């Protein structure tokens, strides 16, 4: 588990627009270990999807990676030539997107979509062998083999989502990046998807980056969680630390503002205010105007992400002097 498979180092991504520059991702560093499921959590506009895209250097213009490195097996993906990246995409690192209907080609049967992926990476594989591989993947996903010869519109939403995972897995990658993979699914189908992902993870020793705003989903899957807010990681730790002993006030608010079906909640914690404007943001902490524990320094200086205890990191000035979170006393 200790082997680092992917390292994101000081990554910053900007989108120049007419009224200024959007700092979508600011100085993010993150590691992914072999066999680990990492949750990337945050609300819309926090930069989590942009960060996910940047791993395969797929940030669309005018978005630009202005600094940083993404090191996969000792090599920086961002300085690779297109041809090298194409080899990694799909073969070593695969991506599963939110909406399977827009990711699958409606004009091609499922078998053709699998063939295309396989032949992209291994042009010499005979069609028969390639199809056999696709059939085996379908078995693992719990889909009947005959579905291979149907079109996307003939499949249900849950099946399409599983096909997307299958296309991601067909080249036996090390890493799967799943961006809101269950948003279009119903709860029961979603639960089936979670079971499947956990099963495949063990079977293929996969590393997973799960990008989501769904705190229930991430609690079911992730070993480690990074919480993003306003383009930066505000806290990072094990799932246990994030849910039961958060340090950053934003994490605390986020975890406690969701209804939990196993609890009797009288009131939810609410965080008034809006996420920050990322066009020319102020110099201080980006959560400063919504934070109940705000201090003078928070308005002036951007808090760095620092280690606190047992690998838990937080970007908050509160812990410059103190040890315990303010809501603990």
């Amino acid at each position, binding site marked *: 588990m200790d082997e680092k498979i992917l390292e994101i180092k000081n990554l910053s991504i900007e989108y120049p627009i007419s009224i200024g520059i959007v700092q979508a991702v600011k100085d993010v560093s993150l590691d992914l270990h072999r066999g680990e499921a990492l949750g990337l959590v945050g*609300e*819309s506009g926090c930069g989590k999807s942009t960060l996910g895209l940047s791993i395969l250097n797929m940030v669309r213009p005018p978005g630009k990676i202005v600094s940083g490195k993404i090191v996969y097996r000792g090599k920086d993906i961002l300085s690779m030539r297109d041809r090298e990246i194409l080899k990694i995409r799909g073969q070593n690192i695969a991506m599963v997107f939110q909406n399977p209907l827009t990711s699958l080609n409606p004009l091609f049967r499922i078998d053709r979509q699998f063939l295309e992926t396989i032949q992209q990476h291994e042009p010499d594989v005979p069609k028969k062998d390639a199809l056999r591989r696709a059939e085996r993947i379908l078995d693992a996903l*719990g889909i009947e083999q005959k579905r291979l010869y149907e079109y996307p519109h003939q499949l*249900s*939403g*849950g099946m399409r989502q599983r096909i997307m995972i299958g296309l991601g897995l067909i080249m036996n990658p090390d890493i799967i990046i799943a961006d809101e993979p269950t948003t279009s699914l*119903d*709860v*029961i*189908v*979603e*639960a*089936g998807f*979670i*079971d499947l992902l956990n099963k495949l993870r063990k079977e293929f020793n996969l590393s997973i980056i799960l990008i989501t*705003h*769904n*705190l*229930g*989903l991430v*609690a*079911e899957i*992730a070993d480690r969680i990074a919480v993003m807010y306003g383009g930066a990681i505000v806290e990072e730790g094990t*799932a*246990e630390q994030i*849910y*039961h002993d958060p340090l950053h006030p934003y994490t605390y*608010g*986020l*975890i406690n*503002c*969701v*209804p*939990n*079906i*196993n609890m009797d*909640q009288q*009131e*939810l*914690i*609410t*965080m*008034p205010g*809006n*996420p920050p404007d990322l066009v020319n943001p102020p110099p201080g902490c980006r959560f400063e105007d919504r934070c109940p524990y705000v201090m003078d320094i928070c308005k002036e200086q951007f808090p760095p992400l620092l280690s606190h205890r047992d690998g838990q990191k937080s970007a908050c000035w509160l812990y410059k002097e103190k040890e315990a979170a303010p809501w603990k006393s």
Partner: protein
Amino acid sequence: MEELIRADNLTKEFPVQKSFVDLLLAGYKRQVVHAVDNISFNIMKGEVLGLAGESGSGKSTTGRLLLRLIEPTSGTILYKGRDITSFSTREMERLRERIQIVFQDPNSSLNPRMSVGAAIAHPLQIHKIGNSREQKGMVLSLMEKVGLTPADFLYKKYPHQISGGQSQRVVLARALITNPEFIVADEPIAMADVSVRALILELMKKLKSEFNLTYLFITHDLATAKYLCDRIAVMYLGRIVEMGSRDELFLHPHHPYTKALLEAVPIPDPRQRRREEVVRGEIPSAIEPPPGCHFHPRCSHAISKCKSHRPPLREITPRHLSACILDG
């Protein structure tokens, strides 16, 4: 408690549209989607009834039927004892002052060319309540109550200039401006961000007691339903399969579908990770739903009788109803 709304044997079928070529090739065969299939329930004054289920279960159609935004195929809807399915257009118009709806996506329910103030005041104009100065005063004071502050400033803003959370507040304010007593809330938080959801839920709770409201709260998220609702009805393929008080339903779920739904809800706590696998499969088509109990193809307890008999919704403990043959 007084009964506010009662639906009896409510049914809605939508005809399936077919292309001309299909008709030529396959011949004419009238097909319908059984969106709502003979359901009955009531809502007490001051109560929050939750309508839960997966997509395609008919919960939104039920909400629209109650307000006669779509006409039922059969069945009656009693509002304070009077059957509104036979109301004239004029009578319905007057009634709409008292019954309102909030939709899922605030952005598509607001006219992009109408300012916040104009949008909230619009129902007042339609129902001819007050002159324009009085209307502005009412709008501003309601904006304060729903947290659209500073009200003066936001009054002149357009939907694209405000945040998603604020848009949902505008939609709520617009529904409340005519001082209704019943609100159908159709997934009002589904599109919102996590932190905004909590704010809207808390606001809806506050407004309920302040304006003495009754809600029909439509949601696919049982955790939210548990948080807000007094009583919950679970729908599956157009039918209510179980209905009971919040505590009854969550502590003693009866119907296998309710149990499956409850097991599937992801818990935002890594200490409570689910260990067992859930029911497989997906909700079947409502065009030709499975005969008998609609849930039998996915149910692990199904017996042969389930395939032929529609189980009636019957009381198993006081005020707790379930539609499963095995209950009896």
